[in-house]
């Protein structure tokens, strides 16, 4: 089965694919003309679902991530920039392993018809974004405490 795992060698096929792939929907590109407006009205009859946008954006963001990694790996070839290249490769690995999960089906029992789960995801992401910077200065202290085994003694009993 095909995998997103990065292969050694030339990536011109990937770049060719990237250029060929990104085409806006024709009805939106024609927006402004009479014909375009008619097309858009016709297209509005069946609004794509939220899942459709998330799927499309996930693939789009992944390929953008690959493109940025491609540029970094081409530029950062000197030994002084090897740390940045390693960082970029690590991020790319994370994104690729996440992308590989699209093949794994979710249990049929899990349903989110009310959208609560998505709401929680938004809250979680927003909280992470807000707290990440505020807590970053305590990062070293936390890791030192964790190494020393101190946080375990302060956790409330279950």
């Amino acid at each position, binding site marked *: 089965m095909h995998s997103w795992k990065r292969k050694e060698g*030339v990536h011109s096929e990937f770049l060719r694919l990237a250029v060929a792939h*990104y085409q*806006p929907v024709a009805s939106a590109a024609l927006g402004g003309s009479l014909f375009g407006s008619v097309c858009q009205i016709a297209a509005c009859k069946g609004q794509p679902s939220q899942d459709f*946008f998330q799927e499309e954006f996930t693939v789009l963001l992944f390929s*953008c991530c690959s493109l940025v990694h*491609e540029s970094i790996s081409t530029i950062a070839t000197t030994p002084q920039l090897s740390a940045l290249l390693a*960082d970029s490769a690590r991020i790319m690995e994370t994104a690729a392993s*996440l992308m590989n999960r699209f093949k794994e089906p979710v249990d049929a029992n899990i349903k989110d018809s009310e959208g609560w789960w998505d709401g929680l995801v938004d809250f979680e992401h927003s909280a992470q974004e807000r707290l990440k910077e505020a807590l970053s200065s305590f990062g070293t202290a936390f890791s030192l405490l964790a190494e020393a085994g101190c946080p375990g003694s302060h956790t409330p009993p279950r």
Partner: protein
Amino acid sequence: MDIYHKFGSRWFCLRMLDSLNEQCLVLNKLEQQADERVRRLLPLISAISGTAHAIGLLRGDCLLNDAYVLARLLSERVITVCCLALDYPTDATASVKVQSPAPQAAPFVSSAMDLVDLGKSFRFVETYDSQELERKLAFLETKRGRSQ
């Protein structure tokens, strides 16, 4: 809990967005390096970083078409930066510059309709030149194939 998220969920998309943002941060760190080659490519590197960031922002409003357009721009910029980083021969560009006629003065616009017509000629002028694309990709193929 992550195992409960399926492909196409918002969580999945946000994680991918995080990866792209992290790649942009690496690109920003690259910009700050005192490397001569990096300095030469600095405007284009900034442009790639900005375009990638903009694509991420468009996700919030579900502006998929706009994101596609920017992604197309991003791919063109990445191909260009890769070519320039590998010393893409610019003699063709130089010869074009030599052969091109002297720049002419902008035509005088007498009415609003003329202005609209003039605007039409400016639109989509910078669409991708497929011949140049093939040249660039062939160049990358040769260079990267040799280096790896």
